[in-house]
């Protein structure tokens, strides 16, 4: 036994490095998709993922290191299932240079900001530009304004988020990982926008 013998084959299949195997995994009814979350530190990327994957919300600090990998499958109304393989990246500056490692080959990018933090909105725009330059062609991008429950502290208007998203061909939604508001909708909307593989 051993990975040693099978390693070269795997590498040839996974030319995209951190990409999941795209070959073989997908058919018309079962879609597998790599999704990456990007955004400033502290905007709630991990909270969104944990709410979506485990239905949990943990208010304590858990600064992501490098990137965490989680997956979650959802079923759509047309009986297709979509398995999201999610890379939840660290927002810290020292990891910025490593982001391509995680977004390379991603079919979906979710760019998150915090509606109470204009700086995080600026950072989101940086990520959008970076993805436009270096992301997979045809990548589906979502712009997410998180912490929508803190509307009394809001500093980024819905209007601003929406306009920026529209201009850049992105899907826009405001969420709250804390209250679970719009979290499932976010992933369902993404699933709906995925290109369906033609039955082979």
């Amino acid at each position, binding site marked *: 036994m051993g*990975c040693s013998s099978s390693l070269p084959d795997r590498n040839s299949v996974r030319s995209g490095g951190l990409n999941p195997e795209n070959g073989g995994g997908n058919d018309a009814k079962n879609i597998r998709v790599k999704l990456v979350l990007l955004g400033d530190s502290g905007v709630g990327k991990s909270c969104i993922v944990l709410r979506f994957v485990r239905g949990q919300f943990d208010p*304590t*600090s858990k600064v992501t290191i490098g*990137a*965490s990998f989680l997956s979650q499958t959802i079923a759509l109304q047309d009986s297709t299932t979509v398995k999201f393989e999610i890379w939840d990246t*660290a927002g810290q*500056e020292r990891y910025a240079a490593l982001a391509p490692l995680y977004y390379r080959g991603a079919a979906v990018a979710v760019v998150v900001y915090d509606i109470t933090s204009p700086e995080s909105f600026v950072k989101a725009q940086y990520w959008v530009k970076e993805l436009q330059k270096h992301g997979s062609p045809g990548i589906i991008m979502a712009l997410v304004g998180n*912490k929508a429950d*803190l509307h009394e502290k809001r500093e980024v208007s819905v209007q601003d988020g929406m306009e920026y998203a529209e201009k850049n061909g992105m899907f826009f939604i405001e969420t709250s990982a*804390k209250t679970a508001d719009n979290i499932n909708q976010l992933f369902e909307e993404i699933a709906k926008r995925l290109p369906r593989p033609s039955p082979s």
Partner: protein
Amino acid sequence: MLSDSNSSSDDDQNPKPDATSIDQSLDAIENQLASISMSQSVSEFESESEHGIHEEETTELNHQDFRNGSLSEIDQLSLHNSVPEEVSRSEKDVDEPKASSSRLWTNAVEEEEVEAPSSPSSSGYAGERGSSSSASGILEVNNDGEIDAVRNDGEFDEVSDSQAPWVPGKRHGDEDDASISWRKRKKHFFVLSHSGKPIYSRSVIAAQLFLFHCSIGYGDEHKLAGFSATLQAIISFVENGGDRVKLVRAGKHQVIFLVKGPIYLVCISCTEEPYESLRGQLELLYGQMILILTKSVNRCFEKNPKFDMTPLLGGTDVVFSSLIHSFGWNPATFLHAYTCLPLAYATRQAAGAILQDVADSGVLFAILMCRHKVISLVGAQKASLHPDDMLLLSNFVMSSESFRTSESFSPICLPRYNPMAFLYAYVHYLDVETYLILLTTSSDAFYHLKDCRIRIETVLLKSNVLVEVQRSVVEGGMHVEDLPVDPASRSGTVSHLGQPRIPTGPPERFKEVFHGIGGPAGLWHFIYRSIYLDQYVASEFSSPISSLQQQKRLYRAYQKLYTSMHDKGVGPHKTQFRRDENYVMLCWVTQDFELYATFDPLADKALAIKICNRVCQWVKDVENEIFLLGASPFSW
């Protein structure tokens, strides 16, 4: 002042070129320290004359005195009743009055404990907003994976131990006091750049200062900013003279400097830990920084001398506070050795076999650990892992909560392996305390490592390794009470670390000497370090050393003993026997091992020596359970 370029004994012959200006700097530092510690009561210090008595009275023995590798009773061993170390300062600290400048700190603690929906940072995303709350380091995960209220304000002498049960929301009386306790703290760590820019400080005030740039009044920040500048001035002044500052003594304080290229590390301490220990701690602190950023961070300073490094360390405060905490309880920090979780030989072999299998498939290091103890580890051919790197890596993994949430893939650097390059670490917790780290040089290897982990996990579950690990955690390691009576009469029925398990054969113990307290002949505790294995084993703490304070004091005594045994000026010593008010300590160093044993202060010397021989025999008898054997890629 000692200087690096010369051996310390030469210093007096090397007066500094401009004595006046360095003296001024020293005066400045002393004045600042005086103001820092002004709230410290005089009684907390011993008088100067009491310092260092232990060190001077060590006894060196000739190797011929050992017959057949046994430590025989030697009358030349000097007994000395040295002045006891100061005790339980921390008790005093608890009653200190609270300063009003503690507001921020107190608020920060409350943020973690209750969710108050009124402020943005307590919105329920408290920690999420990154550096601010992590900077104040409210919760710390110690190396046992237990969460502990942080003494970020740092009553270091009151450190809790690995054995301590986790008390949720545990607070120390001195903890909610920012400025006073900062001044009162026994030990401060600072990291600054050569241009004087703060990089890290383990201090609430400094953290507020450096990371929030906010003012909390009382002029403390000015004091500290001036302080940082003073430190920088001293280092630069001496460096310009082609020399290096190692140590400044200012009254009761030692100021220890470590210069690593553009990064200056400073420790200010009145804990009376030896210089070598404190310097070792600064080295580890630097290593932890390299683990996170690699040494190539130096290039940023080449491009821009005023480069601000703090954003690059964002969110890692808890890693450093956990490391600093471990300086107070983890013997690995001064022994430069790692410790294993006791396991049956076959169990450890089973774990090692699957890790080896994975290592053969292109994984550089495969490490399976439970808390800070190694279950098994394997390196690719010719790759060796330094114990200090293991300490820093396990500290990094255990203190970063996010690794517990899901599998992760993160760049890390092993400073002793290659300080310039990142490796990629796949980290996954197999249960609450047991985690697997797979290291690779390839940034693309995530899916391969994930597959490896799945295979490892399957094998570990099938071969019951994880169950055995849990059992070992519950049973603990070597207990001094279980020291076998007579090596000759060892029975074959022992199952766990030589403890007879059969109720019909209760262990005979040396109860005639100190009945019911510790082990035979007043043996309270021991640490055995195997020199080739780079591993150590420490006995579990038992009855006389039961409180955290006692454990802490014993830890410091070991630290001192270790340093005196390795003193390059007068040593290396072969044995040392010392008696003070608290303990009899016996240390024995051979080519193969170092034994540090602690006895009741009234213990009989002859008997103590006999017991040490027995301990060594016991360790040899159970070495395949307490050490990782046969994994010999650690040759450097």
